[in-house]
């Protein structure tokens, strides 16, 4: 309105260099001071709302601007922060030769605060989201294959165990539901990668949603978000056939809908491939078995195993048939039901030869055993879980498990070249577990849990040898060992969990009760061998306990003190001698751990603990039990406590920028009042007697692992080293108490290239050494060496070929007893297509046996095992 009053056009000296379309000028305020960063907006008169071109003033308040277009009429607007804007129409800007001057008036209007309502959002904390497609190169088939490629996630080749940021993963959920529990390998080893839309890694995972942000959970879990397709079903079928007589076939079906999640798998193979989380070859424990260890009974008579340095896929000669059906059904919004049904059947054939040379107290003799085994495990198992959301803040859960397993092993045994035996071992295993858990969330920071638990585990075993071992007389025909270990376990517990400004805490009060009846009988032709070979006993243990644990986090520190107080009562009844032992004690077990984050890259971790441990189940047998064709075992039952002190220290350094990681850890543990062994070795039967003494064992371990990518080599190099030193005592054939030391060293060097050619190389060297000392004199030593070299080639159209050579030298003292294995694998991938093929050639040189040496402080043994013969397998896979 009154703007025109303040617009003055000034005439400057013109040198005639101005073009008509260039506009220049100056913007000042009323005081004549230049305005910096004022905007000169050019508009067309017809469209006064739209800026077509613009420029800004410099510090002197001046501007010079060359218009890009022609305009019939030009509208110029001047804006500047804190000033009122001005607008002016310039009709003949073409003829404008003189600069414009604008004087702006201060604005009196303050900016108003305006807010828009924010969008609805979904919260997710402590979670990393992976888009699996981003990491796939098309060669992946199963979920496990893609998980290996996700940063932060590691998958153990053998067990399929997954860890995230170094911590073992608790569960792998499907769309948030824990369908598989600890046996998540079922899912990760069988579900096809195409079915997964997103992988989520969750830290501080609380399976119970009510305890989220209340419990101090160090757990991690993965969640697989399943693609929502047109149908609710997806799956795959693989058919593998090969020469000679090899099979590897599997069928998987996954169904995911709002109400029902189901998974079915069935597989059959005889190439030593394990699709399950159970290990009937070596009996190594899976996560579930480790967790249930304290509630389960002991297996006393040894199963046959084929252990050693070789991969299970080389030494396992079997015929595995595995079936699983898992489903989760939401009966109602508040009630869900889950079940996992397993059926597993296998036949292992092994041919093992042991030659053990004993050298004790100037005596020396050799035992040889040649076992031809046929081991047939069979497992039938059902797990159930029921969840009831009682209210928004209360949850009731019941979970149960019924499992029955039997393993029948038939052996043709040739002992010491001349003695021929037929042995049979039947081990049954019955497990029944029940847990009822109620959770009540009191408020956002506190919760209460009550738990009732009951389990029963029964392990009856029967072992027989024909002809007999002649305990009674030379004329008996058959020796039979029966053994029956049972454990009944019950626990009632109340937890109070909370989080405060200082940290998170848990207080638990409960009682725990177990009874362990055991009986065993050694007979020959149905006649007892003697009182000395018979057990009939029961061990009772009860605990009233109070546990508190507190986690304090501040800045770079995390401190976690915890204390457990137990009122322990034990009783041992021997029904044969009618004697009773009992003990009552109050145990005070403190522990402390500290984490210090020095920087984003380096973290220190330290912990100490002290505990008192009651007698372990295997030391409860006062009379002899025949645990193998060579060994009798018994112990002197003593209800005193073993003391255990542990210390650990670790440091990790992770430099992502320089591609360098370093992990160092050291552990030391010391026991007192421990059990020791007294061995009596002979040319026929050995026996082991366990007894407690006021001494202990000492165990020291160091571990170092470092890895670095070297850009100019285009390679990753990795070095790892282990050292352990174990000090222990034993008595061998009426010797004095001997002080022994076992020292183990191992080192590994790994080198893999990532060259810009279709061929790459991988090399790995492993060296391991075991030394045994008695009274500081080196008794036995063994060094083994392993070198693996692979050539990895990839051609267009998705052909991957891996050729590998594996070299083993089981004893470096015997240079000529070495082994070479050659293998090859070809994969033909057609990504996005439903089919793919592969060819596997294993054990090309057709090695049939493998021998290695084991040493101890009293013996050296040669162990020879049969191998899976050379085969070529053609596999065809279809997804649907």
């Amino acid at each position: 309105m009154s703007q025109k009053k303040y617009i003055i056009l000034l005439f400057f000296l013109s040198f005639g260099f101005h073009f008509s379309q260039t506009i220049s000028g100056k913007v000042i305020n009323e005081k004549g001071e230049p305005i910096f960063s004022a905007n000169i907006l050019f508009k067309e008169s017809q469209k006064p709302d739209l800026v077509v071109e613009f420029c800004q003033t410099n510090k002197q308040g001046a501007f010079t601007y060359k218009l890009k277009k022609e305009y019939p009429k030009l509208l110029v607007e001047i804006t500047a922060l804190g000033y009122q804007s001005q607008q002016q129409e310039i009709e003949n800007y073409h003829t404008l030769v003189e600069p414009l001057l604008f004087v702006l008036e201060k604005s009196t209007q303050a900016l108003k605060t305006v807010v828009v309502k924010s969008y609805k959002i979904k919260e997710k904390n402590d979670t990393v989201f992976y888009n699996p497609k981003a990491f796939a190169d098309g060669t992946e088939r199963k979920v496990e294959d893609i998980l290996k490629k996700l940063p932060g996630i590691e998958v153990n080749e053998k067990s399929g165990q997954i860890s995230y940021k170094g911590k073992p993963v608790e569960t792998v959920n499907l769309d948030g539901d824990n369908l598989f529990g600890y046996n998540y390998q079922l899912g990760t080893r069988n579900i096809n990668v195409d079915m997964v839309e997103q992988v989520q890694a969750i830290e501080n995972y609380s399976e119970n949603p009510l305890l989220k942000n209340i419990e101090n959970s160090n757990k991690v879990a993965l969640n697989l978000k399943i693609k929502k397709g047109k149908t609710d079903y997806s799956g795959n079928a693989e058919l593998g056939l090969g020469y000679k007589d090899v099979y590897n076939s599997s069928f998987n079906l996954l169904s995911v809908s709002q109400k029902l999640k189901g998974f079915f798998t069935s597989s059959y193979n005889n190439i030593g491939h394990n699709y399950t989380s159970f290990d009937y070859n070596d009996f190594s424990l899976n996560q579930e078995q480790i967790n249930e260890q304290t509630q389960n009974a002991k297996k006393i008579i040894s199963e046959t195993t084929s252990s050693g340095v070789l991969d299970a896929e080389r030494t396992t000669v079997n015929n595995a048939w595995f079936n699983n059906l898992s489903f989760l059904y939401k009966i109602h919004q508040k009630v869900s039901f889950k079940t996992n049904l397993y059926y597993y059947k296998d036949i292992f054939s092994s041919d093992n030869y042991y030659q053990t040379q004993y050298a004790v107290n100037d005596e020396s003799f050799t035992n040889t055993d040649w076992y031809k085994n046929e081991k047939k495990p069979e497992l039938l198992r059902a797990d159930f879980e029921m969840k009831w959301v009682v209210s928004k803040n209360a949850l009731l859960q019941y979970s149960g498990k019924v499992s029955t397993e039997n393993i029948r092993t038939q052996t043709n045994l040739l002992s010491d070249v001349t003695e021929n035996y037929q042995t049979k071992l039947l081990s049954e295993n019955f497990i029944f577990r029940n847990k009822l858990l109620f959770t009540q969330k009191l408020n956002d920071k506190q919760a209460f849990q009550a738990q009732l638990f009951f389990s029963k585990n029964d392990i009856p075993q029967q072992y027989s040898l024909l002809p007999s071992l002649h305990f009674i007389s030379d004329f008996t025909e058959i020796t039979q060992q029966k053994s029956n270990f049972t454990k009944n376990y019950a626990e009632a517990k109340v937890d109070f969990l909370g989080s405060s400004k200082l940290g998170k805490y848990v207080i638990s009060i409960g009682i725990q009760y177990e009874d362990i009846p055991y009986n065993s009988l050694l007979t020959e032709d149905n006649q007892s061998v003697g009182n000395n070979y018979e057990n009939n006993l029961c061990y009772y243990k009860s605990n009233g306990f109070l546990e508190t644990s507190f986690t304090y986090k501040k800045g770079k520190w995390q401190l976690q003190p915890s204390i457990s107080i137990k009122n322990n009562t034990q009783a041992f009844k021997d029904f044969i001698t009618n004697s009773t032992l009992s003990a009552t004690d109050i145990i005070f077990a403190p522990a402390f751990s500290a984490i210090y984050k020095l920087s984003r890259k380096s973290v220190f971790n330290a912990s100490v603990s002290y505990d008192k441990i009651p007698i372990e189940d295997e030391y409860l047998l006062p009379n002899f039990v025949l645990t193998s064709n060579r060994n009798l075992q018994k112990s002197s039952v003593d209800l005193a406590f073993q003391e255990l002190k542990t210390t650990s220290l670790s440091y990790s350094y992770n430099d992502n920028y320089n591609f360098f990681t370093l992990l160092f850890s050291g552990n030391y543990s010391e026991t007192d009042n421990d059990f020791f062994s007294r061995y009596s070795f002979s040319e026929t039967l050995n026996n082991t007697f366990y007894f407690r003494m006021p001494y202990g064992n000492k165990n020291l371990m160091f571990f170092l692992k470092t890895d670095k990518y070297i850009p100019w080599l285009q390679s990753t190099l990795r070095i790892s080293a282990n050292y352990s030193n174990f000090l222990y005592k034993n008595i061998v054939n009426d010797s004095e108490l001997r002080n022994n030391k076992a020292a183990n060293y191992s080192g590994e060097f790994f080198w893999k290239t990532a060259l810009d050619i279709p061929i790459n190389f991988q090399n790995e060297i492993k060296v391991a050494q075991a030394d045994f000392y008695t009274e500081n004199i080196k008794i036995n030593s063994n060094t083994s060496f392993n070198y693996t070299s692979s050539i990895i080639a990839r051609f267009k159209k998705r052909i991957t070929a891996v050729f590998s050579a594996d070299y083993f030298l089981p004893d470096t003292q015997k240079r000529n007893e070495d082994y070479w294995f050659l293998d090859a694998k070809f994969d033909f991938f057609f990504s996005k297509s439903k089919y793919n093929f592969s060819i596997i050639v294993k054990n090309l040189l057709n090695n049939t046996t493998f021998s290695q040496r084991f040493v101890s402080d009293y013996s050296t043994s040669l162990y020879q095992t049969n191998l899976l013969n050379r085969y070529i397998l053609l596999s065809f896979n279809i997804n649907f």
Partner: protein
Amino acid sequence: MKKITLILCFLLGIYSYSQKDLNQLQVDYENVSRAGVNVLTPCSLYFSNNVAKFTTHAEKAEEIDKKEIDKLSDCETCPQSKSIFIKTGINNYYYQDLNSNLLYSYYLSFKKNFQVKENLPIGEWKLGDKQKEILGYKCQSASITYKGRDWEVYFTNAIPIPLGPWKLGGLSGLILEAKSVDGMYHYTATKISAEIDKEINLKDDYSNYLKNTFLTWSEYFELVNKKLYESNKKTWSEDDETGSGFLVIEPTMENIYNVTNDKIRKEFYEKWGNPDEAEQQTTQK
């Protein structure tokens, strides 16, 4: 009369708060990024005395539903980026100094801090003729190709400062909405206020910040690009046997990620063949 008002205004300008009111500004934005998953990150732009700081509030970042984002964005067919969202809680921030015409960026790549200095303006804007109202302000569209990505923004001349979310700016008014045409980023202003949050001390922040050593953009680009490439190789070479073909770990900013990923992907296809092409060939047969 008018002169008296003027003088009064002028005096007030010197002796009271009117300057403060007008020369200080805080704009809160929300950024929806489709980095593999859809993540909503609140951000803020602080402006005072010709210096602006833009910072993300990563600690408040949330994953949002695809449905929600489809509501927010008209880009239904936007491609999903091949990256991951890692909740780092670490913020990116940028300073624009209008006095010196310099743009400073902070980056965290490979867990290492980088400070990058660039010249302003960021490029030449193409003014559009689309209009819409955001937070009650009339806005006009404009577009630019910057750091390998096409941007479409809405700015208002009613707030005549050449700033905006992230590094965007240089228009004749404040940018209230900015989205990348590929659908990766979408900033929308949620709050404009005349006062800066009390805990923010822009002046001290900035003078402390200037004590850093700075790289030029091309130096940074080259360095991180090389690292990403090596990181991919490292991943390939650390696994047993067949490793991944290409992989980029760090959710780094801007087009470094895409350029590197494209480069790696291209090399991968050259070497091993493009799986899509291979499939087409097989289906043709």
